[in-house]
């Protein structure tokens, strides 16, 4: 990491350290912990969508597999949470490899549909395989995470832990982007034929990134299971996969910071909307949580139509534009002033 990215990374670390001192309410701290899970999955998906140019509408399934592997191994077989999380990661690597090799040969729409179909299948299995997953009523008694006997009991501890994992994820993502693989991916994104003619093994690169992004999702799922101590299929339906795509697309497809900001923005949006609804009620507008879906869809559509680079890049561009025009303005003023003096 260099330059602006390391400055951004520093800001991230400082915010992580400071936020629990500012947010003392347990409910909002909980919301921020969920935000961390979404951030982790979104960073992985951003690597796939923004840097490898492939779309997956099935990353919710990898989150679910991570969560369920962790949940089943710890709650039913009393394994250590860390080993269970590792098993989730290994399982996801195998599945992503098997799914990735044929699916990534396909392009665009086909991969989108294949991953969407995969997400549906995983959700159906989570509901139907009652013996293993507990079915619709869910899986209970999942333990909390511990460090050599030191259990992460409070929300504050879990906040620090989960956001540290996010920071680690960001660090890994930037390292990947600035590596040989990352440059190869950018070449693929530009033109697959040109990249192939330079000796880049396109399928192998895409599969590697697909697997890495699935691992991010799996870890996110495991952390979710250990925080909630309970999982059911509800949060892992297809619409969660769609939400992850939305987070990455709204924040900015081609930028890790964008994905992070998109994930934070959309994770906090329901809270903001319920906060806003009190004021809307004063104006005589009845806002209900049911409208949230419409708002999500509206935001996604607006961003895709008018700011296809996402919020983050557009914001950066806007700031750059303002800076440039300020400079111009200042220059004009200066020359105007001197002209006045000459008179």
């Amino acid at each position, binding site marked *: 990491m260099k330059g602006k990215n390391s400055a951004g990374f520093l800001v991230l670390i400082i915010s992580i350290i400071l936020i629990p001192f500012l947010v003392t309410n347990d409910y909002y701290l909980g919301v921020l912990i969920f935000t961390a899970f979404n951030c982790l999955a979104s960073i992985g998906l951003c690597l796939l969508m923004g840097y490898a140019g492939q779309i997956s*509408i099935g990353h919710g399934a990898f989150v679910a597999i991570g969560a369920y592997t962790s949940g089943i191994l710890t709650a039913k077989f009393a394994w250590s949470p860390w080993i269970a999380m590792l098993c989730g990661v290994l399982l996801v690597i195998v599945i992503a490899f098997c799914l990735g090799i044929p699916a990534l040969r396909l392009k665009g*729409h086909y991969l989108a549909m*294949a991953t969407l179909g995969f997400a*549906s299948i995983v959700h159906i299995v989570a509901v139907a395989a009652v013996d293993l997953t507990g079915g619709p009523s869910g899986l209970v008694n999942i333990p909390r995470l511990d460090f050599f006997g030191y259990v992460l009991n409070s929300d504050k501890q879990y906040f620090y832990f989960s956001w540290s994992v996010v920071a680690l994820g960001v660090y890994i993502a930037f390292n990947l982007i600035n590596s040989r693989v990352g440059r190869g991916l950018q070449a693929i994104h530009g033109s697959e034929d040109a990249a192939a003619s330079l000796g880049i093994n396109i399928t192998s690169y895409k599969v590697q990134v697909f697997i890495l992004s699935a691992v991010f999702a799996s870890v996110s799922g495991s952390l979710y299971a250990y925080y909630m101590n309970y999982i059911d299929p509800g949060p892992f339906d297809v619409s969660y996969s*769609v939400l992850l795509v939305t987070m990455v697309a709204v924040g900015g497809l081609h930028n890790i910071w964008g994905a992070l900001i998109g994930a934070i923005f959309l994770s906090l949006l329901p809270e903001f909307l319920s906060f806003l609804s009190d004021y809307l009620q004063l104006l005589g507008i009845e806002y209900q949580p049911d409208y949230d879906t419409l708002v999500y869809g*509206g935001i996604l559509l607006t961003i895709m139509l008018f700011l296809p680079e996402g919020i983050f890049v557009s914001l950066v561009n806007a700031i750059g534009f303002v800076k440039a025009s300020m400079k111009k303005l200042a220059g004009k003023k200066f020359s105007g002033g001197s002209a006045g003096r000459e008179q």
Partner: protein
Amino acid sequence: MNHTDGTLIDVLQFLFMGIQRGSIYAMVAMGFNMIYNATGIINFAQGEFVVLGGLMMVSLTMAFNLSIVFAFILTVLFVMVAGILMERLTINPVKEPTVLRLIIITIAVSIIIKGAAMCFWGKGSHYMRHFSSSESLDFYGATILPQTLWIFAILFFLVVAYVIFFNYTMTGKCMRACAINRDAARLAGINDRKMVMLSFALSAGIGAIAGIIITPIIQMDYTRGAMLGLKGFGAAVLGGLGNSMGAVFAGILLGILEALGAGYISSHYMDAIALVILLLVLFIRPSGIFGSSEAMRLKEF
């Protein structure tokens, strides 16, 4: 002897159920193909057209007590307008389309339609009266609902109309020309933008019809769009993307496989069967059972 009879009746029963479900998948697949042929886009909101058709029909027949025929026409027109609006407002204005961006745009539209349907029609599932009697008929020991016969008849009618439209009318031929080569079609004086809009209207219309005729049997609710869309896409791929007659056969085949799987393997995993077939086709033979791999290579996707 009796045992064999029972098995045969079971098979017949599953066949009826399969063809009934498959007809719907076939119609959704035809909708996918129309937009795909005109634009190269897979419309992820295709399933939502089906839901919109079903729910609108419920309101018109159950709340406003309109006659089936009148409500049918109004509903199809309503959803066609929704399709045209989608094309005009979200697809047409995109100046630098990339596959990724267009996919996300159609996903956004599907979220909006789903959200709007939830706000207007609520979260419950909706009952709608059958087109004619809801008493099942006896057919060699198996039972069949009159509504199922309606579904078969309407699919047959749609296929005939489709063939006539695309082979014997000027507009249909223009649409086919655009599907084969858009630039050449434009050079021949065909307004390709208009054809794209028409493809969205027709696709939405077919989706609406599918929703209208299946609602009395499955009781529509706002969440069904994604699964209907996925299975319809499965049928479209199985039949060779862009090939609508292939899609009809593939849709019915998919429906029958699903019904047999639900009957003989496990009803809990019924929805997964069609999806597993979709994945297998995508991985093993993405050109579909009727498509040739050479035709695939020519298509840009």
